[in-house]
């Protein structure tokens, strides 16, 4: 097989994977929207426990990442801005940078590593130990039973985490601004909100919704496709994290482009 053939084969396989992942996404939407009309509700307690795991459980690490990112942006931009005596512009730099870009992306990456991997490992183990098959034999659809709660949990909790990451990151930058650059705290805050527009926040949230869908779908898809015992579960977990990371960065680029060209 020559190089071109291998490349082509890879592209075709990726295309097929994308297609089946989309199919899973539409099945999930079907059970979410049509299920209740057929009296097949998704269990609220399983949605709740997934929300606790995905959201509350990820808060500390997402906050940690965002706090230090805020500090880093403040210091890095101060390094440049101080040459122009424009230190006060550190405030909007941190706020806008976090809201538009860094808080959604970094939170998504953290959650992909923590929750996406856990989803893939859990569903993968269920697959290789016949538990998924057992659900099907009991006339319980695995998508309704396992995928929809995880999908909903991430869809709701990732934007929530992102909003908190925005605030915590801005607080990190604020500490640098006040204690290191000796900016007036009141001025720092008013300057932040003067430049940060509503648009900056909601484009970030749109991103995090897309990332939430991506992480849950990739995790569930790789988990449900698992084959071959413990080794297979390990492979699926790795594949889920790698695929999520790539797709998050890719979608981030696409969405940033979209917002950049449509909402100047």
């Amino acid at each position, binding site marked *: 097989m020559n190089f071109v053939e291998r490349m082509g084969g890879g592209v075709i396989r990726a295309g097929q994977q994308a297609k089946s992942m989309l199919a899973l996404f539409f099945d999930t939407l079907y059970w979410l929207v049509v299920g209740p009309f*057929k009296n097949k509700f998704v269990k609220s307690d399983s949605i709740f426990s997934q929300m606790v795991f995905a959201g509350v459980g990820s808060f500390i690490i997402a906050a940690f990442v965002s706090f230090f990112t805020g500090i880093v942006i403040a210091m890095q931009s101060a390094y440049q801005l101080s040459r122009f005596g424009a230190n006060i512009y550190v405030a909007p730099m941190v706020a806008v940078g976090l809201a538009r870009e860094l808080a959604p992306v970094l939170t998504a990456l953290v959650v992909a590593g923590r929750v996406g991997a856990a989803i893939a490992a859990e569903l993968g183990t269920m697959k290789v*130990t016949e*538990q998924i098959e*057992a659900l*099907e*034999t*009991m006339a*319980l659809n695995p998508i309704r039973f396992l995928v929809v709660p995880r999908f909903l949990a991430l869809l709701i909790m990732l934007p929530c985490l992102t909003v908190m990451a925005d605030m915590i990151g801005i607080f990190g930058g604020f500490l640098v601004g006040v204690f290191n650059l000796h900016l007036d705290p009141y001025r720092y805050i008013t300057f932040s909100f003067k430049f940060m527009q509503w648009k900056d926040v909601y484009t970030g949230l749109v991103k995090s919704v897309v990332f939430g869908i991506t992480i849950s779908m990739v995790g569930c898809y790789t988990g449900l496709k698992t084959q071959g015992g413990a080794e297979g579960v390990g492979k699926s977990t790795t594949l889920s994290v790698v695929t999520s990371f790539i797709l998050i960065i890719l979608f981030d680029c696409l969405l940033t482009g979209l917002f950049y060209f449509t909402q100047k």
Partner: protein
Amino acid sequence: MDKEVVIKAENIVKKFGDRTVLNGINLEIYRGETFVIMGGSGCGKSTFLRHLIGALKPDSGRVSLLGKDLSGLSEDALDAVKKKIGMSFQSSALFDSMTVGDNVALPLKEHAKLERSVIDIVVKMKLELVGLRGFEDLMPSQLSGGMRKRVGLARAIVMDPEIVFYDEPTAGLDPIVSGVIDKLILDLSKKLAITSVVVTHDMKSVFSIADRIAMLYEGSVLQVGTPDEIRKSDNQMVKQFVSGSPDGPIKFFQQKDDYLEQLMK
């Protein structure tokens, strides 16, 4: 008395890639009987079982379960049929995240409009049947293999199914637990008139539970008959399998001839 056919497989063919796993299987299973499907590892018996419960679709041929052709059913209709069958899995397939009681209760909670207190009573009754009453609050990981199998069995019968499928119910269990499980299968068949379909290669259990036996070899049915007919079979392959003899028409070493060649390579 005419026997009612509850499971009918007509000319089932299944291929995985180039490999033909099932090569035209025809079988009829009657209501109330204990039907054993036996055969060596890799002969397609588990695959065949998965066709019977609608988990796999045949490349050609038809499976009818309780008078319904599975290939022509909508998802809802297939679910309705599935509610009338139970399946006990080789690895028991208990849900790790739920307690024993919740595992057994799950089909009832999802499919039956019952009060929680009624469900609790049914769960206790089913666990009593398999000798595990009082274990409701344990997690599956705290149980031994044999206990897990029995919980899986309790879960399989919790909806009072008409047919129960068993995939290797005694594999990997000690002789006493195997005997207990065999007795359970018999009890369920005789007391509750459940049709049992058992896939196994445990000869002792085959002859103690079976009303009829089908012997599978390389995706085809070699012989169907009562235990006596199988024991007295003229078919050399069946004879060899029943006696467990390494010498006979069924070869364990598939590539004997080029062994030397491969060694010298």
